[in-house]
């Protein structure tokens, strides 16, 4: 689809926003005990306020009420719907999506709000409009649009009893890589490891052996981290290393909350640690809450296995 076609299609769908799907329509049956009893049995809701007339007579209301979540039930077509339904704005919108390849449909969520109760003998009147249509979204099911209908319910006196928003995704179905996905699911993800090259591999190998090393210039004794092949002070390429005691202080920190990345603990605390030896190291702070961490906090590090494949220095509050 060219940008122009896309624009024309979107102009057409967005014109549906605000259109009426259903004018105010009274339910063909009033709220009644039989339907309430069947619905609560299926749901497994034993609240006596819905079905126990004797109990209800003694309650503050003096009578039973219908479960508020049933408000959409009263206006349903029933068996008649199997012989087709009359065209309305929603059906036209769905057809328009289908025509452009957005044949997939997924009800994503329903949100109800309740304002007033109804009891057997009342009549529920429903009005429905197309409330909003999202911009084009990329979803796991394929690219598509979310549209939301807004149904408003009143009683026979015109008093508002509730609203219901129903969100639907219309999408272009994508081939699901089913096999690959299930194989992936079997693997427990681990943290992303550093690659190990000439200049850094020795450092990570030492971590695997439980040690945090600090590179030291053999000529001028200057410590440096992260490791690199030449001393920035005297340009010597000769170096050895010392082992850090992992006594440190938090110089800065953050909690990486969003986005969550598979293989990592939720909300990891990362910090720049000033080591006693004088160099800085980025690592995790663990063993306390984020709210306990502060700049200047003294910490002690331990080299620990953090997942199946990863060994890292982790710092604990003193």
């Amino acid at each position, binding site marked *: 689809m060219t940008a122009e076609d896309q624009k024309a299609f979107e102009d057409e769908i967005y014109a549906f926003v605000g259109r009426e799907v259903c004018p105010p329509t009274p339910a063909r049956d009033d709220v009644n005990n039989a339907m309430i009893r069947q619905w609560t049995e299926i749901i497994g809701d034993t609240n006596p306020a819905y079905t126990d007339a004797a109990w209800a007579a003694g309650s503050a209301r003096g009578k039973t009420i219908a479960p508020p979540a049933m408000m959409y039930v009263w206006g349903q077509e029933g068996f008649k719907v199997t012989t087709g339904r009359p065209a309305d704005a929603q059906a036209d919108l769905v057809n328009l999506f289908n025509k452009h390849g957005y044949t997939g449909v997924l009800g994503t969520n329903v949100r109800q709000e309740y304002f007033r109760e109804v009891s057997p003998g009342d009549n529920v009147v429903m009005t429905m409009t197309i409330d909003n249509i999202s*911009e084009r979204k990329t979803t796991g099911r394929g690219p598509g649009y979310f549209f939301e209908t807004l149904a408003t319910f009143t009683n026979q006196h015109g008093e508002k009893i509730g609203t219901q928003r129903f969100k639907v995704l219309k999408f272009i179905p994508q081939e699901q890589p089913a096999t690959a996905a299930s194989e992936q699911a079997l693997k427990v993800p681990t943290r992303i490891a550093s690659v190990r090259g000439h200049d*850094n591999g020795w450092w990570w190998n030492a971590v695997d052996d439980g040690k945090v090393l600090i590179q030291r210039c053999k000529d001028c004794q200057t410590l440096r981290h992260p490791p690199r092949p030449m001393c920035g002070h005297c340009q010597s390429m000769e170096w050895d290393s010392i082992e850090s005691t992992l006594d440190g202080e938090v*110089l*800065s*920190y*953050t*909690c990486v909350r969003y986005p969550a990345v598979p293989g*990592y603990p939720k909300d990891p605390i*990362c910090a720049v640690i000033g080591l006693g030896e004088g160099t800085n190291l980025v690592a*995790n702070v663990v063993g306390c809450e984020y709210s306990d961490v502060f700049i200047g906090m003294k910490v002690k590090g331990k080299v620990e296995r953090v997942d199946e494949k990863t060994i890292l220095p982790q710092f604990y509050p003193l």
Partner: protein
Amino acid sequence: MVANVKDKAVIVGVGNTKFSKDSGVSELSLAAQAVKAALDDAGLKPTDLDGFATFTMDANDEIEVARTLGCGDLTFWGRSHYGGGAATGSLHQAVMAVSTGMAECVAVFRALNGRSGHRFSAGVSEGVMTADIIHWGWYMPYGLLTPASWVAMFTQRWMHLTGVTKDALFEVAHTTRNYAVNNPNAFFYQRPFDRAEYDAARMICDPLQLFDCCQESDGASCVIVTTPERARDLRQPGVSVRGVAQAAAPDQEQMTSFYRKEFAAIPEMEIAAKNCYAMSGLKADDIDAAVIYDAFSPIVLWQMEAWGFCGFGESGDFVLDGAMRPDGRLPTNTHGGQLSEAYIHGVNGIVEATKLVRGTSLNQPNKTVNNALVTSGVGIPTGGAILGKMH
């Protein structure tokens, strides 16, 4: 030695594509659209171009853009490295080419599907893009994977040292949004937020919340740079490049310069400022408006300090006094910034700074803008430029 480029290169055309979250077209198409729009603005043809400047990160080969547009001979192409640090870096390439005669007319562009394609906020958590993978290895295993996480680390320490609070971060994000509310090409056009919504927004990496972070966008921006002689014959009033600088400082890392004696600082931007001021013969008092790189709200504050609009730790009070606002000392990010217009890695900022000098910003301050500052990204090798009315 001061670089000898003052007023030798002039911006004569600017262009943006539509900014969106899903362009539905290739990055090459976006590049061609933005360059064409800038050429049209200048009254030039594709065959008038003889050079291109962009980011090393840009996925479009110059020769592909040239073939797409129908350009003639090219005599210059230059790229600048380090993500958003290349915003005025690509301008720097163009100015050097034009002022030395290597090219007469250079298109500076950046084109990306930054939301529907590779998402920039993913940082190095998926598919590292360059050979500096060893560098990122010092951070990845701990979960410090994203631009927001790297900037948060600087922010937390800077707030601790200066006592600047979220009030100042809110002022940056909120003033910027209010500019975007008037800009039909901004993603957040007519969508303001208030303090309660700012405070309630999702925490991304403490202390950065959702509205402290820029968007990811699809789109492209372009400016055309040529000689003053050529500029005089063209349609738009010329906007001279008074000074332009690139800079890296000692112990510079890409986004993680955590190993300096005091790392709550951006010395590389101070060098860029010093050199821009020296080239242009201007000082902070001469800057009338600014487009300051705003991938995150706090980095705007640090740059105000680096460019000498206020001292270290004073930027909070500076903005809370209304400095960034339309009637303030330094109207800033009048297009809505990358926080609220679009994240085109700062090149939409060069477009806006040009408009401020022309006097055609949608939020043009009610004063003469003789000189406008525009800067590149923070935490990386970076740069900036001062634009002014062509004499």
